[in-house]
C-alpha cells in the first residue's frame, strides 16, 4: 500500500457536493409529494373504481414495476424528445421518477386499503357517513397509517435510486461526485465520501418520515403503538 489518502481533495469541492445534495433532495421531495398523491388516488380506483379503470391502473403498475427506471427516464428524456417534445432534463427526470414511484405507492397503499376490515365500512355506513367521508376517514387514513413503514422504506429507496439519473444528465449528487473524481482522480476518497453522504441523506429522509408520521397519525402519537 503506497496510496496516500487525501479526503481534503474531495471536500475542497464542497460547493459542487452541496449543489448535488440540493438537487437530490429537491427531486426526492417533489417525487414524494406527487408520488403519494398519485399512489393514493390510483389505489382507491384500483380497489373500488370501475372495472376498466382498475384494469388500466393494473397495467400501469405492472408495466412500471417490471421495467427499469433508467429505461423509463431515457424514454421520457430522449425518446419523447425525438418526437419533438423537449422536456428540460431535470423536469423529464422528475416526471419519470414520479411515475415510477407512483406505481410502487399504488401497490403499497392498495395493500393497506385491502387490510381495512369490512366491518369498519359497515360501521361507517351505519353512522351515516357519505362515500367520500368514508374513504377519507375510515379507509385512506388508517390504510396509510398501516403501510406507513413500508412507504417510508420505498421513498428512501427512491432517493437512492435517483443516483442513476446522473447518466441522463441530471446533476444530482452522484453526477457531481463523478465530476469531482474525474477532476481529482481520488476515486477511493470521493466514493467513500459519497457513501457517507448518501447514508446521512437516507437517515435524514427516514427521520423526516418518522416525524411526518407522528404529525399525520395522532393515534400513534398518543398511544405509541402501531395500528
Amino acid at each position, binding site marked *: 500500500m503506497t496510496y496516500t489518502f487525501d479526503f481534503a481533495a474531495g471536500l475542497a469541492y464542497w460547493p459542487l457536493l452541496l449543489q448535488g445534495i440540493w438537487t437530490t433532495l429537491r427531486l426526492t421531495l417533489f417525487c414524494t409529494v406527487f408520488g403519494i398523491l398519485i399512489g393514493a388516488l390510483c389505489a382507491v380506483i384500483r380497489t373500488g373504481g370501475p372495472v376498466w379503470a382498475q384494469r388500466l391502473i393494473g397495467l400501469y403498475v405492472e408495466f412500471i414495476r417490471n421495467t427499469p427506471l433508467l429505461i423509463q427516464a431515457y424514454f421520457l*428524456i*430522449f425518446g419523447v*424528445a*425525438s418526437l419533438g417534445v423537449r422536456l428540460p432534463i431535470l423536469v423529464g427526470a422528475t416526471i419519470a421518477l414520479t411515475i415510477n414511484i407512483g406505481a410502487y405507492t399504488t401497490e403499497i397503499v392498495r395493500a393497506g386499503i385491502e387490510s381495512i376490515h369490512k366491518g369498519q365500512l359497515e360501521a361507517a355506513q351505519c353512522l351515516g357517513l357519505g362515500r367520500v367521508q368514508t374513504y377519507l376517514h375510515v379507509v385512506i387514513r388508517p390504510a396509510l397509517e398501516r403501510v406507513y413503514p413500508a412507504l417510508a422504506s420505498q421513498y428512501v429507496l427512491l432517493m437512492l435510486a435517483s443516483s442513476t439519473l*446522473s*447518466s441522463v*444528465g441530471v446533476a444530482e449528487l452522484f453526477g457531481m461526485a463523478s*465530476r469531482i473524481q474525474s*477532476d481529482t482522480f481520488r476515486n477511493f476518497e470521493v466514493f467513500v465520501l459519497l457513501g457517507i453522504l448518501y447514508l446521512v441523506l437516507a437517515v435524514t429522509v427516514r427521520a423526516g418520515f418518522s416525524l411526518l408520521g407522528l404529525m399525520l397519525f395522532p393515534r400513534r402519537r398518543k398511544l405509541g403503538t402501531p395500528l
Partner: protein
Amino acid sequence: MKNLRAVITAGVATLVAVGAFATSSAHADTLQDILARGKIRISVDPAVPPYSVMDESGNWTGPEFEVARKLAADWKLELELVPTSPSKRIPDLLTGRSDVVVSSLSITDERKKVVDFSKPYTVISVVVGGPKSETVTKLEDLIGKRVAVTLGSTNDADLTRLAPAGVEIVRFEDEATSITALSSGQASYYVTAPALLIAVNERNPAAQLEPKIVLKNNIVGVGVKKGEPALLEKLNAWVDAGMADGSLNAIYKAAFGLDLPPELTQAK
C-alpha cells in the same frame, strides 16, 4: 488522461533507451539513408478515426495518411507506410522501424524529452459544435444555450473552466449518451472532437452541426528520432512550404471543415 500519458511516455522512454543505444551507431544520418534508399518509411496508426483509418475496402484514408503521402510525394520518394499504434509510435522511431511518425502525435513536453518534433503541421482540436443556422462565434454567445459534454472528460474540464456563467452545461455519462442527447434534440451544442459532430449529423440529419468555436488546439508535429538535425531541418522547411502554399490547410479543411489556426498557418 494526462497522468496516464505521462506514465506511458516515461515507460516508453526507459524501455527504448536500451534499444536506442543499440541502434544509434548504425544510423548516423537518417536523411542520407532515406535519400540513398529512395524510400521513406512513415509510421501511421490505421485505427484513429477520422484522422487515419482503414476504410471498408481496405484503403488507408484520413488526413494523416494524406499528409504522409504528401510528404513522400513532395520529396519525390517512394512511400512505405508502417502501421503503428498509439503506444508504439515513439518506439518505432527509436528502434529504427520507421524514419518519421505522422500519426496524430501531439507535441508535449514529456514526448520532447524522448523524440524531436518538426514544426506543427496540424492540430487536434476540441470544438463547440452547433447548428448551422445559428450564429455563435464566442463562448459568451452560448449563454442561455444547452451545451452537452461527456461527464468527467478533458473536454468537460476545459468547458467548465472556460464557459462564462449562464451557459447551461449538461453532462452525460459517455460520448454515446451525449450523441443520443444531440440526435434527439435534448441539447443543440456539443463540446467534442470535430469528428464526432459528423457522427451526430449522420444519425440526425436535422441536427446539422458544424464547428462553431475552437475551445482548444493540441498541436501535432512530425516525430523524428533525436539527433537528426538534417532531417529535422528538411521537415521544417517542408512544413513551412506546405503552410505557405496552403496545401496542409487544404488537407485539414477537407477533413474537418475548418481552417487551421493562424498561429500555424502564419508561423515563420
